[in-house]
């Protein structure tokens, strides 16, 4: 019973995501999970997810970054200027944009970590600066279209090497392969934990959890395979998710970020260079905001002066819905991703239902408050 309760709390957000998806699936008469819509859903949220990965680390470290939306738009504008107006090739342009994002992150990170200015203020300033700079860079106009090769970043799909007619076999194989790999890794970790007498979840729960993951993955990939296959950006997202989950949960770097946000003084007195670590989380955030800006620009196929506005709110909301604590030290990468998809599914579902943008915002705001309320309530009771 207690493991079930524990499980419910740990997986509360996952369960909420499933419930919300089922709800909209019913309300939209099955439109939500149509292969075409599912593909769109992933594409629409990819840039939010990418930024949420970096934002989670920033929030866990005890900071906030309000500038990511503006940086995202600014980098899109930069990419357009470089590729469309100056004729740069996509690869050098992308690298330059990522470097520019990291530099922006470094500048803000330096102000936060070394000049000790609160991150809220630094990034509020950054938000205004880069919002203005994108306007200036584009001279107030939309710039496009991008070269084909660049567009494929967002709108392309992985090739089908098997040539399997109506079903995209490589996509399906990738899904099954990933599912098998995840189960194998989980089994191995569990075996090791039992061997070392560590506390593990009950075998029933373990089996159920893995069955659910396998079912979800295979269903997703099968569904996508019946349309055009896996989008390139989904592959990118999956790789980044795996990487950031690994870094946060398993490496010394990740552990130190949690300690920094949990108790900065204790972390510093334990030999952790807290300033450098804070600095690096912002550099990383800048680079990811740049990547998200590229993905977004490639998807729209133009850079517009208004691109990226308000993204920071969705990204921050995703982290908090996913269980991150506003006071730092607590939060999971997978939680932030699930939070992003909760927001995404609601956006998408409500749009299909024809709910106006006005009430969409109200509902999203209420969901954010409800999610955090439940989280805080649970934590106080524990």
């Amino acid at each position, binding site marked *: 019973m207690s493991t079930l309760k524990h499980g419910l709390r740990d997986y509360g957000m996952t369960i909420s995501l499933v419930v919300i998806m089922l709800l909209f699936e019913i309300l939209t008469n099955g439109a939500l999970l149509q292969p075409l819509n599912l593909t769109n859903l992933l594409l629409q949220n990819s840039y939010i997810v990418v930024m949420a990965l970096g934002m989670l680390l920033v929030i866990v470290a005890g900071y906030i970054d309000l500038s990511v939306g503006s940086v995202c738009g600014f980098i899109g504008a930069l990419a357009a200027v470089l590729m469309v107006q100056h004729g740069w090739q996509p690869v050098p342009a992308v690298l330059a944009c990522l470097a520019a994002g990291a530099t922006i992150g470094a500048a803000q990170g330096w102000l936060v970590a070394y000049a000790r200015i609160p991150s809220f203020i630094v990034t509020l300033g950054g938000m205004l600066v880069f919002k203005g700079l994108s306007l200036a860079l584009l001279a107030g106009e939309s710039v496009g279209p991008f070269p084909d090769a660049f567009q494929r970043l967002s709108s392309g799909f992985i090739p089908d090497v098997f040539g399997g007619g109506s079903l995209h076999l490589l996509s399906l194989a990738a899904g099954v392969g990933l599912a098998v790999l995840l189960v194998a890794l989980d089994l191995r970790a569990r075996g090791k934990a039992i061997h070392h007498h560590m506390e593990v979840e009950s075998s029933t729960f373990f089996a159920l959890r893995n069955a659910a993951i396998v079912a979800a993955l295979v269903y997703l990939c099968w569904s996508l395979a019946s349309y055009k296959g896996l989008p390139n950006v989904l592959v990118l997202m999956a790789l980044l998710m795996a990487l950031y989950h690994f870094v946060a949960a398993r490496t010394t770097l990740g552990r130190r970020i949690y300690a920094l946000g949990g108790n900065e003084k204790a972390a510093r007195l334990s030999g952790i*260079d807290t300033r450098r670590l804070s600095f690096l989380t912002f550099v990383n955030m800048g680079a990811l905001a740049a990547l998200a800006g590229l993905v977004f620009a490639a998807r729209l196929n133009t850079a517009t002066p208004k691109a990226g506005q308000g993204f920071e709110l969705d990204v921050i909301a995703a982290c908090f819905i996913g269980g991150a604590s506003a006071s730092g030290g607590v939060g999971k990468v997978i939680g932030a991703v699930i939070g992003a998809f909760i927001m995404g599914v609601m956006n998408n579902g409500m749009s299909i239902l024809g709910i106006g943008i006005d009430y969409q915002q109200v509902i999203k705001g209420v969901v954010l408050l409800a999610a955090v309320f439940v989280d805080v309530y649970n934590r106080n009771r524990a």
Partner: protein
Amino acid sequence: MSDVVPALLEMRGIGKSFPGVQALRDVQLRVRAGEIHAIVGENGAGKSTLMKVLSGVYPAGSYEGEIQFDGAPRRFAGIHDSEQLGIIIIHQELALVPMLSIAENVFLGNEPARAGVIDRYAMHARTRALLARVGLDESPATLVGTLGVAKQQAVEIAKALSKQVRLLILDEPTASLNETESARLLALLRELRSQGIACILISHKLNEITQVADAITVLRDGATIETLDCRAAPVSEDRIVRGMVGRDLTHRYPERHPRIGEVVFEVRDWRVQHEQIPGREVIKGLNLTVRRGEIVGIAGLMGAGRTEFALSLFGHSYGRRISGSVLLDGRTIDVSTVSRAIAAGLAYVTEDRKGSGLVLEDDIVHNVSLANLAAVAPGGVIDAAREHQVAAGYREQLDIRCSGLAQRVGQLSGGNQQKVVLAKWLFTRPRLLILDEPTRGIDVGAKFEIYTLIDRLAADGEGILLISSELPELLGMCDRIYVMCEGRFVAELPARAASQERIMHAIVTAQATAQA
């Protein structure tokens, strides 16, 4: 005789349970008007729970038993109700707003005002009168954040007086005060007593209790063990301890058989300037040695610079323009950053384990490995199994009592939290362990365990530097004691020559010559 003085407060048959725990069982407490009543007990004995019942934090109905105050039964629904009757509690963590003035703090929530506009002149005048009563010579306009802990406490008491306090509850009021400040506070309590204000004093410092208390109630495991009357005949500390732990604690310190070897650690001409005020020297040329297997103490008043010294040694974590050299085994070591200091073999157990020792939200395993992650993370990837094994080893070695290694350290008792901090530093395999107030806020039983552990480490050849404000602790544990005053060592006493009197004498003489 004792029945002549009527009871101001009478708590009868108080019981309080939480899911899975019976925190209080049939507790009796009788406080007479105008007496100082001490409540003692080990951590977890139920002292704070009892005070929360009394002050209404746990509202009537959530506990069993009855409370009589001033001759009538009372049922408090919240703190507000108890404050109305003059029951005021001052917590260990003071509840003042640092960026507001003394006057604003004293009248916070209770401002003299007409139509919502604060009458500043009345507020200042009344604050001045209250400050005179508590003997605090500060302007009412002074910001509270600029005051030291002792003065902040006086402000809290002034605040209580402004609310017509009749029963003042002080939770560990002297925990962060030095001897003179503590003495002044106790004198103030006596003064309030003469004005008819009763006081409940919760403290671990038994010597202070025997000085001021009129009666002592001993709690153990959530039950009243006894109430001792100190007016008839003085009660000894040993007598109180017997009640607290339920047996005679003949030795409060382990018996030591030090085998002292060669010098392992040496500091030469260590100078540190104040962090904010350039040019002001806080540490003025200290020289210190620690030998193999030796426990060396540093005594001194609050503000003598002991913690600043330790922090500056440990990775220059305090101060600027630090000069001097640090030697380990005769070789100069680099202590310019914390990670270098750790790598060189230093470890520092902070005086503030919650504020700067532990990540409270995190579990035991992660806290233990934090200062030496590299040892469980080949190539930067943490080996969870190995990390777990390390924590399990220390759990057994130090007898850390917890529901499991995945328990959050914030949920552990003070003594067990301190053991987690010690485990963290032992895992860095230090050559010199600096302990800053290692037993602050820890109960008698857990203290003995920590002392035994320190002794065992010394016996294994570790050098130990022990900073403490409790002189009996230094005298009970150390082989040699440095006495520090205003950034200088003013005396160095071998254990057999040291006594509380000699240490205080050294400090007083140094202060006198400094002023002359």
